[in-house]
């Protein structure tokens, strides 16, 4: 297997190259199936990698492949190398599986679009970079994937580029991510100057000489986290993700929900050996995560665009994952990353199906009653909603509850309360969305009503498969408290044990504590409360939502706390203004003024000197005589003194 890892990333790349140069005359179906097959091949190979890992001793599950020397200058060395261990294996399985389903779905969704081939080129390119990101065996290869997925995100958000708004959203995503990458890049520099290597497995043995809480490691972790904040849309750099919904809906599902935005979580988990040595940095990660979870959830409460609700939900759920990382439960973070990939991809694809059926409508106030018209979409959407709301038995329950439990167990009680309140909001906004979209009466226009239809099977089959995953995906990590043995955490254990195992994975080895059941019960009650409230407001149509919407708090939240406006007035405009002053006043005025001034001065001097050339021979003769006398005088001076 160790010589075949590169095939996992090669197939999507073949897809990119083939579609770029050779499939111009192919039919839509051929292009779509071919591209999907390339990703499917990656999935099959990922499964093969998984099986070969299972065949190994638990502590030896580690396959590396060095492709070539990428950069080598003096003592700096960055090989192009790939690494499959249990952590990256979980990631490639999740990424390739979800990508494959979304590729299939896209064949139906993008049907008839003039950019059909371009779409699949970008989508395959994305899968290539995403797999490279998770397979890289050093920080620099990871960074290539990191930037590469950002690029694909930019290209796909602005996919319908003739719409200026969409193009702007793409640009915003790229630039905000660049701010995060700035931190990531500095972190790589600091890692290299500190450890002399950027290879994950070479750093770990060199950590021994650093004390826990060492300032340089804390600095590295915080810089890495700046990168994670950008890519995973955490406060205060989350602003690009809601705008990113301008892209085609399958793209939102794949890139902006299931895979790319979780890269920050993966990166923190991958760097666990650094974070576990930097408690202060972990504290920051946990606080930012929990803070973002509740902040984004409040915005999600009042959005009326189906995709915007899901976007803020994604930001909020990513916050949970960081909370898990922050309390040292990296395995749980990855667990939630995986279940979230299933149910959030499903939610987005479901919303895409709705938008498709509603001829492009995205405002949930114009929907309603779609349950009977789009039954497959409804039922699968319901499964995902139950999963994200944390209803016992569905995947999201296990992973989210595990996060809250680890937070509680780590004595982070304030963060736990924040997490629980956010869970309440989550249940509320998701059921509000469900009721407004699928229940009640149809509120759209007559022509929309006539056109509403269930989506083709190329779209509904992926929905059904994802619904199955969203329902049962959590059982791989069934905790001991519920009679399971948590295979998931045990599988990941060798990776995270490499750092400082004593700091994490408490629950898996302790006995079951009674308080764990109480914590679990509280999560369930809170979720049910949220659902009940949503039911009263949006199914029974009680009058309180209407009254609330007149308040100032509502307006503030509806306008997303005016963060975008603050950035615009506080950063964007002053920068442009300053640049204009520099360009016009300083560059053209001061510097060029000086240059032209010097030129004018010489012109002026030359004008005076020209008068010496009078044209009268006598004048020249006098000057010549004076010159000769001067030269002779200087000669005499040299001879005698």
């Amino acid at each position, binding site marked *: 297997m160790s010589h075949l890892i590169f095939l996992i990333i090669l197939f999507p790349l073949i897809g990119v190259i083939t579609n770029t140069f050779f499939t111009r005359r192919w039919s839509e179906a051929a292009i779509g199936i071919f591209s999907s097959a390339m990703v499917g091949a990656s999935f099959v190979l990922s499964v093969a990698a998984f099986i070969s890992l299972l065949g190994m001793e638990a502590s030896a599950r580690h396959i590396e492949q060095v492709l070539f020397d990428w950069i080598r200058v003096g003592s700096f060395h960055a090989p192009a190398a790939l690494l499959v261990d249990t952590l990256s294996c979980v990631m490639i399985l999740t990424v390739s599986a979800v990508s494959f389903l979304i590729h299939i779905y896209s064949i139906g969704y993008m049907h008839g679009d003039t950019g059909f081939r371009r779409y699949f080129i970008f989508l395959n390119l994305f899968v290539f970079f995403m797999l490279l990101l998770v397979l890289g065996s050093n920080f620099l290869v990871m960074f290539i994937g990191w930037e590469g997925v950002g690029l694909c995100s930019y290209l796909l958000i602005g996919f319908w580029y*003739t719409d200026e708004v969409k193009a702007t959203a793409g640009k915003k995503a790229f630039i905000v991510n*660049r701010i995060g990458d700035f931190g990531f*890049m*500095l972190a790589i520099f600091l890692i290299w100057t500190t450890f002399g290597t950027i290879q994950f497995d070479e750093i770990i043995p060199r950590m021994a000489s650093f004390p826990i809480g060492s300032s340089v490691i804390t600095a590295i972790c915080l810089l890495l986290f700046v990168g994670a904040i950008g890519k995973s849309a955490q406060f205060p750099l989350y602003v690009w993700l809601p705008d990113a919904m301008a892209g085609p809906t399958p793209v939102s599902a794949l890139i902006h929900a299931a895979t790319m935005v979780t890269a920050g979580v993966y990166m923190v988990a991958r760097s666990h050996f650094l974070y576990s040595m930097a408690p202060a940095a972990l504290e920051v990660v946990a606080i930012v995560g929990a803070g973002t979870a509740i902040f984004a959830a409040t915005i999600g409460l009042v959005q009326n665009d189906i995709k915007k609700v899901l976007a803020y939900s994604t930001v909020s759920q990513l916050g949970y994952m960081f909370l898990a990382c922050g309390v040292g439960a990296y395995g749980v973070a990855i667990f939630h990353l995986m279940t979230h990939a299933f149910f959030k991809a499903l939610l987005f694809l479901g919303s895409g199906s709705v938008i498709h059926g509603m001829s492009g409508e995205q405002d949930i106030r114009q929907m309603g009653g779609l349950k009977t018209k789009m039954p497959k979409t409804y039922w699968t959407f319901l499964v995902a909603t139950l999963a994200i709301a944390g209803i016992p038995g569905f995947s999201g329950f296990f992973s989210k509850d595990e996060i809250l439990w680890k937070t509680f167990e780590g004595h982070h009680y304030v963060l736990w309360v924040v997490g629980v309140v956010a869970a309440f909001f989550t249940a509320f906004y998701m059921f509000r969305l469900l009721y407004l979209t699928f229940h009640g009466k149809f509120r759209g226009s007559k022509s929309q009503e006539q056109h509403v239809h269930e989506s083709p099977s190329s779209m509904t089959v992926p929905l059904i498969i994802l619904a199955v995953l969203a329902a049962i995906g959590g059982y791989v990590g069934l905790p001991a408290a519920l009679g399971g043995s948590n295979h998931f955490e045990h599988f990941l254990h060798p990776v995270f044990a490499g750092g400082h195992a004593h700091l994490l994975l408490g629950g898996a080895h302790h006995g079951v504590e009674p308080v764990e059941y109480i914590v679990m019960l509280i999560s369930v009650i809170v979720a049910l409360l949220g659902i009940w409230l949503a039911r009263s407001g949006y199914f029974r149509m009680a009058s309180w939502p209407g009254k609330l919407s007149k308040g100032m708090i509502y307006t503030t939240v509806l306008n997303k706390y005016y963060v975008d406006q603050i950035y615009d007035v506080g950063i964007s405009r002053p920068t442009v203004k300053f*640049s*204009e002053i520099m360009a016009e006043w300083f560059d053209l005025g001061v510097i060029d003024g000086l*240059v032209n001034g010097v030129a004018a001065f010489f012109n002026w001097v030359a004008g005076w000197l020209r008068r010496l050339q009078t044209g009268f021979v006598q004048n020249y003769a006098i000057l010549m005589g004076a010159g000769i006398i001067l030269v002779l005088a200087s000669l005499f001076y040299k001879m005698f003194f």
Partner: protein
Amino acid sequence: MLLTFSIFIPTLAGLIILFVPRKMEILQRSIALIGTAVAFALTVVVFIGFDGSTSNYQFEENWTWISSLGVNYHLAVDGISLFLVLLTTFLSMLCIISSWGSVKERIKEYHFFLLLLETGIVGVFCAMDFFLFYVFWELMLIPMYFLIGVWGGPRRIYAAVKFFLYTMTGSVLMLVGILYLYFQSIDPITGGHTFDILTITNQCNFPMGTQIWLFLAFGIAFAIKVPMFPFHTWLPDAHVEAPTAGSVILAGVLLKMGTYGFLRFCLPMFPGASLKFVPVISVLALIGILYGALVSMVQKDIKRLVAYSSVAHLGFVMLGMFAMNLQGMAGSLLQQINHGLSTGALFFLVGVIYDRRHTRLIEDYGGIAKVMPLYASLFMIVMLSSIGVPGLNGFVGEFLILLGTFKANMAYAVFGAAGVIFAAVYLLWAYQRIFFGKIVHSVNEKLRDCSPREAFILIALIIFIVLIGVYPEPFLSRMEPALQAVLNRVQDANAMVP
């Protein structure tokens, strides 16, 4: 004799063109193309035959020229000049191809000057004798002056004179420096003075005070050429007025004569002063990076925008060079090549739409991705290379520069890395305004996409843009010994200072 041929075959072709009847335009163009293609092929042979494991000068040619003055006709290349020579012959060839359709006036003279320019630049990079070096340095000024002044835009005279005066100011200072070095030198064989660069370099061991004066004399000349902030204002004017090929050569290789000068002369000859000037150069480079990016952002003219972006990119090159470590210097040299490829390509790209619409204002475009999809794709790749997206050449250079800078001085690296953010801002914004949205000017609805000739030029450049991004090893490994030799001289000087 390979280097001599590479240098003078273009001029030979230029002279032949002068004797071709004015009406036979295709013949004139063909001769120019053959001349540049042969020169390029010869430098490729040099590249293949080059021994990358040593810092020694190779393909050396040394003839006595003016024995009474100690002037020799001495040429050679090492890992530093090799790539600059290749870049020059490559871009010159593409320039001839690009002019095929776009230049229609005084074709004879145009090609003659373009070919003469190539001789001057390749000569500068190969000359191992100061006298010869200065001759080539000045030689290249003349054709450039005429290319801007005759085939340029409406303000071409102002731009040409400005370019000429700026550069001449520097050249005069450098000439004083060269003469000083000459009178301090001793030819080991004749006992007289010598212009030989290797001999002078080895004999250079001046007290700090003298070193500082010499560093300034050479440094200002090179800083104007680079151009470093605040000597950069000739560049936007020269670029805007120059014809496409002029801009390509100007940005692609002429600017590199400045950075090359620092690397070849200032660092090894005045190592002590170079170390003293690290803070000055680094801060000016950082100002250039940030200032260039910000000013670039608000430009309305695409060529001015690219010109200011060059100021920012060359800031990176200088920053890396004065990190005074192998990573920074290798990044710096690689970035010189990268900038030549990417910015060269950007100017070719601007030329493509300028030929169609005769305007360079961003606001005159908008939405043209719809009518020029191939052009939009090629522009996108080149833009991403200029932004420094991994997988393309710009990233490797920028990364190594910042890595080396970080090792030397963290604060500089933090500001430098911030410049990377701005690069994305100005290019993406410009790209959006040119290509995205709806077509607002109806004239743009009928724009032709790239012709095969135009596409050929751009794809040729993009092949190298991708190659260096994915597999920079063949480039970096050949540079390393030569850079290490320069670095050793600097470090020896550092060791001597108590």
